């Protein structure tokens, strides 16, 4: 007996509805804005791909995109090796394990805007602990509201402080899952510490590192709250990352059309780079 009907589709329906309401429909409204111009009163004029062309050709977008890639690059190049190094030096058993884990998890538990505010106050030249020590004790001229370099150092340091823990915890999880026998075998094989890292620890951490890199890429590429609270994109436009620029266009200038086009381009870039990362990092497993 073989029954053939289309009832199975009903089982897919809940998921379809869920995805429709939390992703597809909001996204389609953005698509809707991106091809039209509106002056309010719900009156729309068809624009075709004009907004996309305008955004893709604008220097302002190029500059923000450049800053965004620079920021993400710095974040990954610092947080991933640092996270691995911290995970490697954490104890594997005993009293200090939970202590380390809790300490590591703490920064991640603090809300984004609080992190931004904390670092803002922390680095104020006259009252912030770090700002005061740098300016008045060590005599280094440090003011992120005036100096773009100082502003960049501050947002990168803040992100490293906030999110390196994620890489640490993921790497640590990868490390503790390595059976003792591997280390014992390596000892007997006469492997150096570097060889142990290169041929045992790194390969075993690969899966979690792939996840860590993807998460840190997406998060840092889409970062908004912390730099917004910390520098507001300044001084000048020096820390205006893509998302900050996007909000300026959408809510500051109320240019909904260009903002919608920019969101879609932004989304496409994030998707593309994530896919590239994933493909490159998992290439070996397919062979």
């Amino acid at each position: 007996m073989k029954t053939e009907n289309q009832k199975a589709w009903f089982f897919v329906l809940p998921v379809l509805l869920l995805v429709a309401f939390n992703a597809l429909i909001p996204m389609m409204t953005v698509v809707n804005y991106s091809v039209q111009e509106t002056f309010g009163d719900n009156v729309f004029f068809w624009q075709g791909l004009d907004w996309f062309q305008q955004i893709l050709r604008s220097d302002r977008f190029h500059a923000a995109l450049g800053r965004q890639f620079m920021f993400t690059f710095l974040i990954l190049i610092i947080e991933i090796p640092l996270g691995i190094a911290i995970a490697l030096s954490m104890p594997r058993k005993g009293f200090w394990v939970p202590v380390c884990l809790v300490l590591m998890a703490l920064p991640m538990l603090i809300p984004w805007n609080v992190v931004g505010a904390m670092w803002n106050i922390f680095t104020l030249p006259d009252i912030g602990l770090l700002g005061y020590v740098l300016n008045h004790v060590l005599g280094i001229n440090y003011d992120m509201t005036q100096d773009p370099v100082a502003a960049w150092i501050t947002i990168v340091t803040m992100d490293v402080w906030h999110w390196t823990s994620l890489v640490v915890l993921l790497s640590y999880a990868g490390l503790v899952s390595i059976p003792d026998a591997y280390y014992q075998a390596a000892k007997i094989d006469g492997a150096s510490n570097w060889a142990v890292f290169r041929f045992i620890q790194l390969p075993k951490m690969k899966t979690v590192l792939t996840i860590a890199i993807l998460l840190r890429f997406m998060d840092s590429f889409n970062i908004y709250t912390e730099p917004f609270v910390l520098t507001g994109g300044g001084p000048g436009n020096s820390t205006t990352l893509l998302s900050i620029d996007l909000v300026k266009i959408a809510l500051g200038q109320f240019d909904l059309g260009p903002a919608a086009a920019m969101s879609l381009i932004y989304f496409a870039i994030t998707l593309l780079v994530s896919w590239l990362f994933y493909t490159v990092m998992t290439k070996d497993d397919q062979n």
Partner: protein
Amino acid sequence: MAKITLSKLRHSYLPNPSRPSDYALKEIDLDWTDGGAYALLGPSGCGKSTLLNIISGLLEPSEGQILFDGKDVTKLPPDQRNIAQVFQFPVIYDTMTVYDNLAFPLRNRGRDEATVKERVMAIAEMLEVTDLLDTRAAGLSPDNKQKISMGRGLVREDVNVVMFDEPLTVIDPHLKWKLRSKLKELHQRVKATMIYVTHDQTEALTFADQVVVMQLGEVVQIGTPVELFDRPAHTFVGHFIGSPGMNVLPCELRGGQAYIGAHPVALEGAIRGDGTGTTEIGVRPEFVSLATNGLPAQVTKVSDVGRHTVVECLAEGRRINAIVDGSHNPTKGDAVHLSFQQDQTRLYVDGWLATTPDTQTAKSEPMEVAQ
């Protein structure tokens, strides 16, 4: 290759051991000759892996010494002892090819590539993995992975001892047998001292020339497989080796004669010592037969295991196994009489063998238990 001597070795995982039970390994004195094949046999937790890790240098003993060819290596780290170890779960370096895996121990020791190649090819040929040399090790089947980890141990031509820590645990049953004979063959070819740790009697008895049986951190008997089977020095050995193991039956001694309940049992020979302590009779199921007279018993279970039949009986409230040839099987509930072959019936006092074989009866025909 070396002679290995363990001298007054003791180990405890506790910082300040005081009682004997604090020791995972009680005092051990052993001599292992160069080129021998040894097995450490015992149940889980008997200390055999501890002993292995002490020999390999992964663990430093609390007391005592380990000597390789008379040289004290107790404090040396594993890489300076020149040993090889194969672990329970195959350890391979996933990102490397099979060739690089085999070459790894040599390259770490700075051998030139020509020597490396020669050794790797020789070992690969021995293990029959030559056609796999260029494949990534990650995708291999468990038995091939375990072969590669063995290969990494054997690739160095000067290893003092190769140790196997239950290496066949994760191998499919039908490949176990193949790998075991491969191992035996390897031993004959490379002539290295090999120590094989296992809780599986078949593995131990087929691999080793000498089996060291351990229980609760103590060596209870060292002997050839035949010796362990024929004259277990301790009831534990008798029970642990054999399938089913030796029957161990509490008995009483009255006037130099052993009795199970009211039934006298003839022993293989004279009793050493005064026989005070817990006395037990040990006789293997192979030497228990169903007879017309003898110890009355009731059959509680009959299992046909192929070559023969295991008959489980109850006599004097004790379970006794007998192995019969299967031509005249009793059925459950039958009342039978059990007869013990006299030259295989021994007395154990406090667990240890306490009879010496009588030269007259040793070669005689099986005798019935006296009525």
